[in-house]
């Protein structure tokens, strides 16, 4: 409200003589000058949301702002205070054109193999003063797997950001996800792990009055071995009684000794994946 009244007052005031000349725009971090006319001493303020600067000014001379003095992009007011009179004008500071840093959001850091579009990356492009460069720029996004295969997309930024999705590889292992622009790069490592077990099968054999049940080497559907420590669940059902044993995979297989009840049904599962079922025939 107060500002509104002041604006009205300013608009009704007689036009003041102009004592300073502003550049139409300034690039962040670049040198510029503001020439002034007249004589005597004055104070020049440069005020915006990005910076506030004060300079003592000799009227009639140009006030120099060296490189790096005004570096945050945005709208600014230049205010020349000469005794009781003030004069002000606005100007814009644009981001420097050269990218210097990237804000690279890559997700997830770990995922199963063979997921289409499962890896995403968003890149924000900044200049050396961490201003977002909003002019369109091409960003290269590459996902290189340990096996040597590579996916590559070149995306043009819009409002300073570019994004893409990539597929996780068929083979497990780390992948390097690299965002690159004009000699600047940022890397994230994506850990690609085997998927769920696939074709889970068990065999059984007698063992001193018990039955030893053992899986075949456990793989995912792409043939990647399921890591040791993954839990495999064996279930034995006999005369409406059920017993369950959780066993970690060791050296690629899971093995357990169970009571040898003739006619018992033994099944296997890992997570949500069920394997085959066998009926124990008493030594068969």
């Amino acid at each position: 409200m107060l500002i509104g009244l002041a604006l009205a007052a300013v608009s009704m005031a007689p036009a003041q003589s102009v004592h300073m000349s502003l550049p139409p725009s300034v690039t962040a971090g670049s040198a510029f000058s503001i020439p002034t006319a007249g004589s005597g001493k004055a104070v020049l303020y440069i005020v915006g949301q990005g910076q506030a600067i004060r300079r003592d000014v000799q009227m009639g001379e140009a006030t120099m702002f060296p490189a790096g003095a005004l570096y945050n992009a945005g709208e600014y007011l230049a205010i020349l205070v000469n005794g009781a009179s003030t004069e002000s004008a606005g100007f814009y500071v644009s981001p420097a054109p050269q990218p210097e840093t990237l804000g690279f959001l890559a997700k997830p850091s770990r995922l199963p193999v063979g997921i289409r579009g499962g890896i995403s990356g968003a890149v924000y492009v900044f200049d050396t003063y961490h201003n977002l460069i909003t002019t369109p720029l091409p960003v290269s996004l590459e996902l290189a797997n340990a096996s040597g295969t590579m996916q590559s997309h070149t995306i043009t930024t819009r409002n300073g950001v570019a994004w893409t999705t990539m597929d996780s590889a068929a083979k497990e292992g780390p992948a390097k996800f690299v965002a690159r622009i004009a000699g600047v790069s940022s890397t994230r490592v994506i850990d690609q792990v085997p998927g769920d077990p696939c074709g889970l099968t068990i065999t059984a054999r007698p063992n001193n009055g018990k039955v030893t049940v053992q899986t075949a080497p456990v793989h995912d559907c792409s043939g990647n071995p399921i890591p040791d420590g993954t839990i495999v669940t064996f279930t034995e059902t006999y005369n409406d009684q059920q017993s369950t044993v959780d066993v970690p995979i060791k050296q690629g297989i899971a093995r357990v000794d169970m009571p040898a009840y003739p006619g018992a049904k033994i099944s296997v599962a890992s997570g949500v994946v069920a394997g085959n079922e066998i009926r124990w025939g008493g030594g068969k």
Partner: protein
Amino acid sequence: MIKRILVMSCALALPLAALADQPTVQVKPPELQGSRPLEKQTEAAVIRDYLQSWKSLRSAFDLNQPELLSPDFVGTAREKLAATIDQQAKLGIHTRYQDRTHDLQIVFYSPEGLSIQMIDNVGYDEQVLDHDKILATKRIETRYVVVLTPSDVRWSVRIFQAAAK
């Protein structure tokens, strides 16, 4: 009689003054680049938190208290604004911002859900004061590029930058 008229006038004027400080807000439908759908609740929360951040900015710049920027601003946006407020305080000046209009549009929701980008064609008044003396007053129409990221219970402004119109 005169006293009664004055009281009534004040009673009418106060809500009008309060209304005058509320910006006019227009929200355009999202024009998303990005694969992640934007739920209505998310959009509403982002806009609510962003408009709140202008209130914090107004107070922080007027009172020269950078701590008022939290929790609405985080990261680079907070660091830059706080540094400016410190500079103002050292120069003995402060700035009054009054946002008048916001014309908002969400333009990007990153696939992993960690950032939302919004364009705000904003109109605001800026008044620079040396203690109580007004140095300059200007009405500014500009375009802001804003990036918000989620924190525990809200969206916070991480990038806050006026861009060329």
